[in-house]
């Protein structure tokens, strides 16, 4: 398992290095002491399973959304290792919170649990297209615009757009030409109906 450390305190970073070195289960992929654009690029390109961060790197006003900021860069679990006092509310955003007084065993225990937390994935959608989505897809493939589709089915343009977004999410196909190929291959439309 690989971890990435964001630790302004060299001593704390060395402490974790020592713990991980002794146990061998965790490898440190990188250590940084700050989050600047350069570090952000590093984090986007790393493959660590967990990021361990001392929330002291974030300005006080940003601490409440610190986890979110890291999650925008990486899918890794985010674990706090605070050198400063953190209230319960702030702690709750992290997948785990390590304490300066945790034993090495406790640290490992918490990290393992944090990494195995299933992330609630909004895109866990794997269903087939619904009947209505197929109707809309057929119209799109035939070259109708949103307004025309809305009129045919007596629904709002907003609803048409939502359907189209769902079609793209499920199929992974974005362009009208691509959706037309999908419709043709699935025999939803007749080749003669596309010019």
């Amino acid at each position, binding site marked *: 398992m690989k971890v*990435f450390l964001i630790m302004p305190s060299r001593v704390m970073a060395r402490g974790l*290095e020592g713990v991980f070195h002794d146990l061998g289960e965790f*490898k*440190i*992929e*990188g*250590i*940084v002491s700050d989050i600047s*654009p350069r570090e*952000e*690029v*590093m984090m*986007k*390109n*790393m493959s660590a399973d967990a990021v361990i961060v001392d929330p002291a790197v974030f300005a006080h006003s940003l601490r409440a959304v610190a986890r979110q900021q890291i999650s925008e860069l990486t899918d890794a679990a985010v674990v706090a290792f605070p050198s400063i006092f953190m209230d319960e509310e702030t702690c709750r955003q992290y997948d785990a919170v390590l304490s300066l007084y945790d034993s090495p065993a406790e640290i490992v225990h918490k990290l393992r649990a944090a990494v195995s937390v299933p992330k609630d994935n909004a895109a866990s959608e794997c269903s087939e297209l619904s009947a209505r989505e197929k109707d809309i897809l057929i119209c799109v493939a035939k070259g109708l615009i949103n307004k025309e589709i809305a009129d045919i089915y007596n629904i709002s343009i907003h609803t048409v757009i939502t359907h189209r977004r769902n079609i793209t999410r499920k*199929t*992974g*196909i*974005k*362009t009208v*030409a*691509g*959706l037309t*190929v*999908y419709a*043709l*291959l*699935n025999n939803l439309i007749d*080749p003669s109906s596309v010019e």
Partner: protein
Amino acid sequence: MKEGIRFFSSDMKMSDLVEMNYRLLTVLSRLDMHAGFGEKTVAGICAEAGVDTEAFLLICNMYSYHGYLPTEEALKSADPLSVLKYLHNSHSSYIEDGFMELEKIMDGLVATCREQEKRIILDFLAGYRKEVEKHFEYEEEVFFPYVISVTGHNASQDYSAAIFEENHSNIEEKLNDLKNIVMKYLPPTCDRRLANDALYALSALSEDLEKHTNIENHVLVPMVNRLESKKEA
């Protein structure tokens, strides 16, 4: 202590750069740099190839690190003409190698399909190829000559990088669509043994095109913006 990500530098060996990311071989070949680097440094090989080292490093970093954005400093010290050379040579390599290869694989993939299915898929690819060629043609005939004129301080007044940026469309979208079609909705009559080849080729081309667009938007355009404002001042 192991470092996380190292960015490339001019005094490292070219062989180490390739070791760090072998995909950069594509970049190198587009700049007429070929294996047999010996112990020469990045700067040394660049000098031999007549490519500005700073521009080369910018391209390598953009190519290797997702989300990498060049600093003002880097943009200032790199030569736009070397970036242009890379982009121009990439265009030929997409048309001459990338598409040729992809078309060959796709032809084989659908060879066993019903005539109608074959036509649907190959027409989509042919339509896409035309679109890309038109896109490149515009850059080669309008934008690139403009960039050259700006570097020579005699740019026309009726065109600017802003106009280019506004009309710069996203060309890898359709390729991603095709990737999804091959991955998920291939007719069972296809030669499925070739599906992997097709997916590798599609993924590689789409990734490369995305990087190409990023280099245009985040390296070349800001460079030209800077030259334009210098000219006005």
